[in-house]
């Protein structure tokens, strides 16, 4: 079983892609374990779709190797790689019924009609489309089309399923529902899923492994909680959201922590947490989770000694249901936002223009690279 289990391992070794003069992907290295749900996350044009298409075999890397199950697949056709791709906006065959769409891969493999329809019908049942088996794609809703696309990709028993922005064609509510279906399907099939998206919420909700990309490079790869809670640098922190990123100068380094001072920020201690090579006088970025910020009225300010704090003014307030988003006067160009739980906020509601003291526990500060 153990060798069988490893066939969906993917390793990208120095994979790069160049179009004429434009570098789409810059020699990336990554290991995706078998059976993982991996999300490539980044803005459009960051090279994530190119990576997906190179793994799928629809594009060849300019340099580097792609290993699936330990075997170099560069130059192989998709069918030889045993990968299957689910295309953006699904690319269903518009002239074929749901059943024929799903059975297509078997048809071109020369599977006899009765047999391929039997397999297709089983798949149709799995994605709950039995009543719609004879419809054409144009007669289906977005969610139904997605299920057809998923079934069509899964019918050949691929070891890796590649999904290119699978949820982008759906409306918000359906997206959340289909997201769960994707995850359920992945667990059902027990194969590696690689999913490309530009929506951070989608990535962290689904993935075992989130790969954050910028301009053809991997910025950070790790578990969903890891990239969200401990972003590696300013880019990752800002792209995933939920963090305030502040800049300051290092005043003093004392072993496991350093003292930082910023504009409007008095010196406070920041845990270094393994990040090396910081010396006195360096400019550093720190991140603080927006839900870690506490807002206090200046008159009642009871700030624990040593905790960072800064006086600021409420710029805007957005009600979000279970929490309230309070936007505070920016420090320089940096956004500074506090997420206050709904109950806390309304026990003493703030108004736009109110002066508040924002504070947080100093050990909740994260030093960014």
């Amino acid at each position, binding site marked *: 079983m153990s060798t069988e289990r490893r066939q969906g391992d993917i390793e990208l070794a120095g994979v790069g892609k160049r179009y004429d003069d434009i570098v789409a992907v810059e020699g990336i290295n990554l290991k995706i374990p078998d059976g993982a749900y991996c999300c490539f996350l980044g803005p459009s044009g960051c090279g994530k779709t190119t990576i997906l298409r190179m793994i799928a075999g629809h594009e060849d890397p300019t340099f580097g190797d792609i290993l699936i199950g330990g075997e170099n697949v560069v130059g192989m*056709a*998709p069918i030889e790689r045993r990968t299957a791709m689910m*295309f953006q906006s699904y*690319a269903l065959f518009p002239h074929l019924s749901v059943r024929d769409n799903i059975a*297509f891969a078997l048809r*071109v*493999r020369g599977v006899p009609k009765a047999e391929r329809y039997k397999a297709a019908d089983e798949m149709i049942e799995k994605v709950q489309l039995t009543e719609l088996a004879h419809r054409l794609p144009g007669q289906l809703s977005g969610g139904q089309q997605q299920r057809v696309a998923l079934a*069509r990709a899964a019918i*050949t028993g691929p070891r890796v399923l590649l999904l290119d922005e699978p949820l982008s064609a759906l409306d918000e509510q359906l997206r959340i529902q289909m997201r769960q279906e994707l995850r359920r399907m992945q667990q059902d099939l027990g194969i590696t899923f690689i999913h490309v998206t530009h929506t951070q919420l989608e990535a962290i909700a689904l993935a075992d492994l989130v790969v954050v990309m910028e301009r053809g490079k991997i910025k950070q790869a790790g578990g969903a909680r890891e990239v969200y809670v401990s972003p590696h640098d300013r880019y990752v922190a800002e792209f995933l959201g939920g963090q305030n990123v502040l800049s300051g100068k290092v005043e003093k380094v004392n072993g496991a922590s350093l003292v930082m001072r910023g504009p409007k920020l008095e010196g406070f201690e920041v845990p270094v947490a393994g990040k090396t090579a910081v010396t006195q006088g360096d400019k550093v970025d720190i991140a603080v989770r927006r839900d870690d910020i506490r807002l206090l009225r200046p008159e009642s300010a009871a700030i624990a000694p040593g905790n960072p704090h800064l006086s600021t003014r409420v710029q805007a307030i957005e009600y979000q249901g279970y929490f309230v988003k309070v936007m505070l006067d920016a420090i320089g160009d940096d956004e500074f936002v506090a997420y206050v739980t709904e109950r806390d906020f309304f026990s003493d509601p703030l108004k736009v223009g109110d002066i508040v003291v924002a504070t947080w526990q100093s050990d909740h500060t994260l030093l960014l690279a």
Partner: protein
Amino acid sequence: MRLPRSLVGWFYVSPLMLVLIPFFVLPMVVIITASVLEGDGFGGIMPFFTTQNYIDVFGSGLTFNLYFSTIKFTILTWVFSLIIGFWVAYFLVFHVKNQLLAIGLFLVCTVPFWTSNIIRMISWIPLLGKEGLVNMILQGLGIIDKPLEFLLFSDFAVVVAYVHQLTIFMIVPIFNSMARIDKRVVEAALDAGASRFDIMRYIIVPLSKSGMALGSIFVVSIVMGDFFVVRVMSGGGSASVVAALYEDISVLQYPPAAANAVVLVLVVMLMIGLILRTVDIRREIAR
């Protein structure tokens, strides 16, 4: 002021009616009427009802020979223009990556149409004639020792001229329907393991059926209704339905010509009906 619903409907269709009634319905009525009247033999039509014109048309062995010859040209032209048109369109849509270049090449296809039909036909003579380029080259290469006679003023020449003239009518609609095929659909087929041949027969041909049907309608109706190309390119050796009809008119036999025309219209309608039965164009376009 509110107009009654039915009146508004008529307003919407009125532009079409204004074209169709004077230019299609009226001439048809005139022809159908003339076909069942007696002629006086000198170009006059007398108001007496008769079915003799039709009896003559169907009673004559010549009619069947004419239809046989015309339908033969139609089928040959249709087959060759469909094959050539399909591949040209396929090349332009799927193999020319640069869209600007594709449009440029597409326009090049229309260049022959910048000259008149007659010039285009005449231009075949120096190419296909007894001392024409083709014969000269073949003789020069020693492939043949005396000139090929069938190249010009023959059925072969007629088909060549038709294909030359009408392939563009295949290219345009097929190009149009192929251009609407999402490239990702082709990629999805490739991903599923389809070979090039599979992609051709399961994806591209079915999805460009509407274009092929539209092109076929153009080609079939034009060839069926033409006599000029047959006359010039066959050197008078072959006849066609319309050529016979033209003969009737030139000797002022209007009622028989009208009867002939009505039969031709029915035959062409039947052929177009067959094409439309094979490909449901409305459904294909709506998809």
